[in-house]
């Protein structure tokens, strides 16, 4: 039986996943945690075969960071990153953390067991793209990777020069990309744009995170 650790701080979501694990003949519950930071300690002390790891856990501790550490120390443990947020960087960051699979909570719950089965069979199950998010006159699919990076950096920095310094380009480049995004979305200014992006959770600012292209 595959021993499953569930790392999820939202009670109802956690209980739901526990329900599916306990109802399955192939899986047994190893434990539940609300905080991703404790997952490594749990894996050192208990047998775990599979982790269902939420991205944002208690005290904003990152499931992605925990996944990276666990995959390094315990490479045989499979990890499925689970989230309901459409934050555009999560898929790439999950891959960078060597997470085995990725699952969006908003999809049909039966798919979770399918993802778990396929992951334990050695498959890497990742959605092709993050869900499409409507942004004014356009959607997130029509913004380039560079545009998303510029937008994220502006939201983290608050001003053009700081954003330019973080990315390693000029202020003019930042303004150029921002103007392109405003043209595409139809928002009147950068603040309307940033408010919309924040509200739709397309970009969630994490000032502690190191930027990568």
């Amino acid at each position: 039986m595959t021993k499953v650790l569930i790392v999820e701080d939202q009670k109802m979501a956690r209980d739901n996943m526990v329900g599916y694990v306990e109802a399955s003949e192939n899986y047994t519950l190893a434990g539940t945690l609300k905080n991703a930071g404790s997952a490594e300690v749990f894996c050192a002390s208990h047998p775990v075969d599979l982790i269902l790891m939420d991205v944002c856990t208690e005290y904003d501790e990152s499931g992605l960071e925990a996944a990276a550490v666990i995959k390094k120390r315990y490479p045989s443990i499979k990890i499925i990153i689970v989230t309901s947020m459409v934050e555009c960087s999560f898929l790439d960051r999950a891959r960078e953390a060597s997470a085995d699979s990725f699952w969006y909570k908003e999809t049909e719950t039966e798919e979770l067991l399918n993802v778990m089965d396929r992951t334990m069979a050695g498959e890497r199950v990742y959605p092709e793209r993050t869900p499409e998010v409507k942004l004014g006159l356009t959607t997130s699919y029509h913004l380039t990777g560079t545009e998303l990076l510029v937008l994220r950096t502006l939201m983290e920095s608050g001003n053009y020069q700081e954003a330019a310094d973080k990315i390693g380009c000029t202020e003019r480049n930042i303004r150029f990309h921002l103007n392109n995004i405003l043209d595409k979305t139809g928002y009147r200014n950068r603040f309307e744009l940033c408010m919309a992006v924040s509200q739709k959770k397309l970009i969630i600012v994490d000032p502690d995170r190191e930027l990568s292209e």
Partner: protein
Amino acid sequence: MSIFNIRKKLGPDAIRESLDNLPSGICFFDSNGFLKLCNRTMHKLSFELSGHDVQYLKEFEEVLKSPGNKCTRPMNGKYYFMADGTVWMFARKRILGAGYQRYTEYIASDVSELYARMDELGNNNKKLLEMASEIKKMSANVLTIAREEETLSMKMRVHDEMGRSLIAARRLLSQGVLLEKDNPVIESWKSTIELLKRGNDEPEKKDMLDELREACKGMLNIRLKGTLPEKEEAAYLIVVATRECVTNAMRYANATELFLEVTQNEGKAIAKITNNGTPPRGWIVEGGGLSSLRRKIERAGGLMEIRSLPTFELTVILPCDEWRLMT
């Protein structure tokens, strides 16, 4: 038109007239400091600055340094604010005239519009900074909001699922169908009721230290002396430090017990963490985990100290009041 004719047409009066028609002020002082030429605009300005006709360079420069009551020059800056609401800037230049005569040229430029735009830009920038700060605050709340939306979405799904199950069961029963144990409707009801029951059966709320204790249960026991501070941030960081020590104690020292001693004194919490494992052989070099811990502690205004010999001890000092330990 020949040069002879141009020279004939451009006499002193023509030059005077064209200078007087310039929107800027202009004047020239010779090498002895006497005023040689001054257009109407500059004449008007110098009168407003000084209250009288200015004829000498030294006098003119004194007036620019300390203008009269009809003009203000905030913080001895480069802008002169006149009584009529206009804003001016003065620029000096040394020039060489015919016969290598040296002159001092002063040009006064009306920068009223430019200044108004700069002022507007300054106000806009201030508003932008405020808005940027609001966006940062909002982003910090997004995670909290996202979690609550997720819970709400889950509850709505459960509610809808129960509703569908009820409708399906009622329809089947009204048709006289016997609902067998493995009927999908029964299965659906069962899982929904299990979910709700699980929610009600949840034991008393565990804090982060309790969760850490359970996480390392069977391998390492955490013994706490004292109490965690009431200030949430300080308590959280102490548990994070403990967690880091638990990981290292299990991995490197084969420890089975970890001792966390917390004292509080004069608005600060002091946590000392030791273990019963093998002492380090040499000085501990801070790897990723300890460096990350140090950054978190220092960002919170705290201090962290590691002692390697003769036994390992991690000390963390955190503020529990509003003031911070580090400048």
